[in-house]
């Protein structure tokens, strides 16, 4: 039953909203927040969302709306002199303690502190500025994330994201009072703790305290080097999120425009990681069937997500044999490019070919540094740019993504099926694998391509068990997103209660659509759902085939080079190994 309260005098209904802030926002009002993130535990620390609440008996309190449950009959005032003064004081205090070198900040233009300071007209910081001599050093040690403590406003969003998404608590609070800091335990560098590079800390950070390792300039240098052939690939989830940075709605598929922009930027060949996703399905489905036949190393763990791979390597090294030996789609495409292009394209050599990949993911930046993904000391993938960095490239090249014409990707790694596109959402890999495994096992096509029970990104943490019927053979699949849920699956396996044969893990809540490299600093469930819809829409409506084994270029690749899935050459190019001690896994970290 809906109940009633008042917001600035307007009568509104509420039902199951978890807090007053949601009721306020649902009814056309807004209050600023730094620490509130709908997915995460309410924290109530920043005090920006304070409102005056008048109870029916006349008692008035000031409280944070993000932590207050809505109550029948209260009158909520969101914009009184009293609460505006608190907000402005909070902003002024935060700015006094903040490294205000905004123009050179990676977060400039996208920073919530900047935004609210602008909105509240903070023009004069009357409190003593923090002495730059007391600035803490910036931590550049991590391959994916840069941590600048001088820009941290201690909202604790990253601490909660790390804890509540990944169960990991790589970041935590230390010290007390005005000496409070957020960082890795015991003042360690971010490279020296078991960070899985998922970038969710950065995704929820309202300021420039946690930013991406930005490699845009390095890629421009390669493009401008006449002796280099620079090829590029783009991951599934990028196509449904990039548009947001060019005033297009979330979930709008801009893949054709992406290809076009890539050519305009100056990439020599434009490929799609989706091609490699189809290839992954051929290899992984085959591997899966073989493991099931032999009864070995089950359940099979998917290995597309580097954050997950790193988690297994560091936290459960005894289980690395469960991981699929398949490289991630990104790395498969890179190895193939460096193997095949010199054979087929004029001017390409293994040495002069540079592979750049555009990813929704920060962990991919770490993945390419794995020594197992090098060949004679040369990296398979040379650079990973996140969706955000790619948008920056497009903007600085003067390209208006919104208006340019769509184009097609280049051969031979541009063709893909709908099965590949859905890799970008939690459950997608399992669904794609199921479509092809059905064919490989039975020789027949699956009746319906839509296995909707595997899907779902609306909740931040998914843990679902699905039984697939492959002509009478039952295959049990577990799909999880977030490592908190993955850990539960591992504990089931260790306890001997796990009855699933395939475990799909994506570390980011909802999968790659919500990756740490995607645009926008505030992940909301709505955004994830819209982006995932964009992917499922392409799968259903825009692709000729919806099963990886139907990809003509994949069939051709096997005919011309690889012979068959899991062949000797396929193993050499498309499969990898894992180390039970991560420090041995990464090169030059």
């Amino acid at each position, binding site marked *: 039953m809906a109940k009633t309260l008042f917001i600035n005098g307007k009568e509104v209904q509420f039902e199951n909203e978890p807090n007053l802030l949601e009721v306020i926002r649902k009814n056309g009002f807004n209050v600023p927040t730094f620490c509130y993130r709908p997915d995460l535990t309410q924290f109530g620390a920043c*005090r920006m969302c304070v409102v005056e609440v008048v109870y029916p008996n006349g008692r008035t309190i*000031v409280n944070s709306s993000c932590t207050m*449950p809505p109550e029948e009959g209260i009158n909520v005032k969101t914009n009184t002199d009293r609460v505006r003064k608190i907000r402005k*004081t909070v902003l002024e205090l935060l700015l006094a303690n903040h490294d205000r070198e905004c123009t050179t900040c990676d977060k400039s233009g996208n920073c919530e502190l900047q935004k609210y300071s602008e909105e509240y007209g903070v023009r004069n910081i009357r409190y*003593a500025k923090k002495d730059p001599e007391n600035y803490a050093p910036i931590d550049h040690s991590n391959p994916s994330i840069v941590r600048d403590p001088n820009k941290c406003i*201690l909202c604790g969003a990253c601490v909660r994201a790390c804890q509540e998404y990944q169960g990991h608590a790589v970041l935590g609070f230390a010290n007390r009072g005005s000496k409070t800091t957020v960082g890795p335990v015991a003042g360690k560098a971010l490279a020296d703790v078991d960070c899985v590079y998922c970038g969710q800390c950065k995704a929820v950070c309202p300021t420039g305290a946690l930013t991406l390792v930005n490699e845009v300039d390095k890629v421009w240098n390669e493009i401008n080097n006449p002796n280099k052939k620079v090829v590029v690939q783009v991951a599934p989830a990028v196509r449904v999120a990039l548009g947001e940075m060019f005033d297009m709605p979330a979930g709008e598929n801009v893949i054709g425009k992406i290809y076009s922009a890539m050519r305009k930027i100056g990439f020599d060949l434009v490929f799609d990681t989706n091609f490699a996703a189809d290839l992954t399905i051929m290899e992984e489905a085959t591997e899966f069937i073989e493991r099931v036949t032999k009864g070995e190393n089950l359940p099979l763990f998917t290995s597309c997500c580097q954050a997950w791979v790193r988690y297994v390597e560091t936290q459960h090294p005894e289980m690395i044999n469960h991981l699929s030996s398949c490289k991630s789609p990104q790395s498969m495409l890179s190895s193939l490019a460096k193997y095949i292009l010199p054979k087929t394209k004029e001017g390409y050599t293994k040495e002069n070919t540079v592979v750049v990949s555009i990813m929704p993911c920060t962990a991919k930046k770490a993945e390419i540094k794995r020594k197992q993904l090098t060949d004679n000391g040369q990296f398979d993938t040379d650079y990973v740019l996140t969706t955000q960095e790619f948008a920056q490239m497009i903007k600085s090249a003067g390209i208006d993504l919104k208006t340019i014409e769509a184009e097609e990707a280049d051969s031979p790694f541009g063709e893909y099926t709908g099965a590949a596109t859905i890799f970008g959402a939690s459950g997608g890999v399992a669904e794609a694998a199921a479509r092809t495994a059905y064919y490989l096992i039975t020789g027949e096509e699956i009746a319906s391509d839509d296995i909707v029970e595997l899907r779902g990104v609306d909740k931040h943490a998914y843990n679902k068990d699905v039984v697939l019927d492959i002509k009478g053979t039952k295959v049990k699949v577990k799909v999880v997103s977030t490592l908190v849920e993955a850990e539960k699956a591992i504990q089931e396996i260790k306890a001997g209660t796990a009855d699933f044969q395939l475990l799909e893990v994506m570390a980011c809540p909802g999968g790659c659509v919500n990756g740490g490299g995607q645009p926008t600093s505030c992940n909301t469930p709505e955004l994830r759902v819209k982006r995932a819809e964009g992917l499922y829409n392409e799968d259903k409506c825009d692709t000729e085939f919806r099963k990886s084994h139907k990809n003509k270029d994949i069939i051709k690749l096997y005919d011309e080079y690889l012979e068959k899935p899991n062949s000797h050459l396929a193993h050499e190019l498309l499969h990898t190994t894992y180390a039970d001690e991560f420090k041995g896994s990464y090169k030059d970290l």
Partner: protein
Amino acid sequence: MIQDITPIQKAAIEKVNAQGLRVLICAGTGCVANGSLEIVKKFEEYGLTVNPLGEKDKMTAVPTGCHGFCEQGVLVVIPDLHVTYVRVKLADVDEIVNEHIIGGKPVERLLYVDPATGEHVQKNENIKFYKEQTRVSLANCGHLNPEVIEETIAMNGYEALHRVLEANDPQAVVDTVLKSGLRGRGGGGFPTGSKWQFTKNAVSPTGKKYVVCNGDEGDPGAFMDRSIMEGDPHKLLEGMAIAGFAIGADEAYIYVRAEYPMAIKRLRIAIAQAEEMHFLGENIMNTGFNFTIHIKEGAGAFVCGEETALIASIEGERGMPRPKPPFPANKGLFGMPTLINNVETLANIPPIILKGADWFANLGSEKSKGTKTFAVTGEINNTGLIEIPMGTTLREIIYEIGGGIRNGKKFKAVQIGGPSGGCLTEEHLDLPMDYDSLTAAGAMVGSGGLVVMNEDTCIVEVARFFMNFTQNESCGKCTPCREGTKNMLKILTKITKGQATLEDLDLLEELAYAVKDGSLCGLGKTAPNPVLSTLKYFRDEYIEHIVNKRCPAGVCTALKTIEIDEELCKGCSKCSRTCPVGAISGEIKNPFKIDQEKCIKCGACVSSCPFKAIKVK
């Protein structure tokens, strides 16, 4: 069928009576520091041989909890001889035993001297410090050995719990507490009975509920909770068990600061003894009621006295407050309904049960019932721990119980309620000390810290001192408290250094209100109180620092100048030889000069000058 407590009480009384002449020696933390344990030992040695005058055939030394009159420690009280000895040293024991206990003649030089009359006072009840007090929660402190459970039982210990369990009506217990009008003694002053009712009514997902005792006494100079835990631990345990029975909890925690090792030790002993006697643990007094008490040692963070931070700390998390609602009564420790009460609050429960809600409600003032303990410190003659009916005036506390301002100085202000409280002035001397009057005056009862200041106290420095404390103790979670207290401290420091402007003063006030309004928990919400109340009553003194760069009390070092009066200086060079930094120079028999650049304003020269030629300005 509930176990009969009468034979247990009888046996306990017999055991106490068998001690003969009881010599109560304060073994509270303060007196222990003054060597009281040595004195106990000495009396014990005598106890083996001495045959006291009169009907008692033997003598027993009884180490007790704090007597409260810490100013006069070590205290030795012999109730049967109606005598209280003060400032007793180890060397005095022989005299007390031989002259008084054996000889029957009081040792006059060890009696308390009334500062007003100059007379020796022999009887405890005639000492004004005690005479004006009404002791409820502290009633037994100083009268029994807290490490021997029989001494408590002999004084009706666990009789209230027995009565409650026998009646077997939890709601009746809550009703009694409601009716008594008891309010939380930890500072908030929330009606205790309502809190019990909320927790009793709360639905637990598993049926589990907890009682938590907040013993994280953190105000500088406050030691009322410690005195109860050290001096009468069973009263606290009994209060907790009654609370547990009333709300339906079977498990409890006492959160005690690790800096209270003696309290922790005595609580542990008390819990073990109470469990052995079936007053705690499984199947209490054969009624089927179970109640287990754990002790959790805190690590000394002030903010852990805030109930949600305290809960987080018990759970093993960082001690940071959580937003309310949900209140602990609904979702507290480990997510279960939890009753959190302060030590003093719980210690009031057994007397309320035994003597009735009406008896308690008749004590105190209209809206603040019962008594309250205060830790009185500062520039006052009788510092120590007192318990008075709510509504007693400040004047009675300072001039009657406290014996007036030390060294005949003038009263200036009193800081009530610790770092979260406020300053009150002469105009408030007749203000009744209760929750509502104090809050209205800009102070608060708080846990009961009471610091008396005289004319030599700089009020800005006092505000700076408390702000330094709260900004250090802020947990760092919410912005107004973390950054706001830091910046308030910065401005206050500027003022005491004579570097501030009147704009800074406005900013300080504006910030104080934002911190008060905007902070997440009680620590931040009350942190500006010392600043706001001193600004209210002593704004002139702030302005004097800012505009005239002068500290009226002569406390702020940076605003002092020390000068030599050339007329008076005889050129003896004594000051020059005393100065630790070589700032004074001159020729013998000619006036000397102070190099103001070098001078550190320590004042050593001032007191060294035989001609009073050196002056502080």
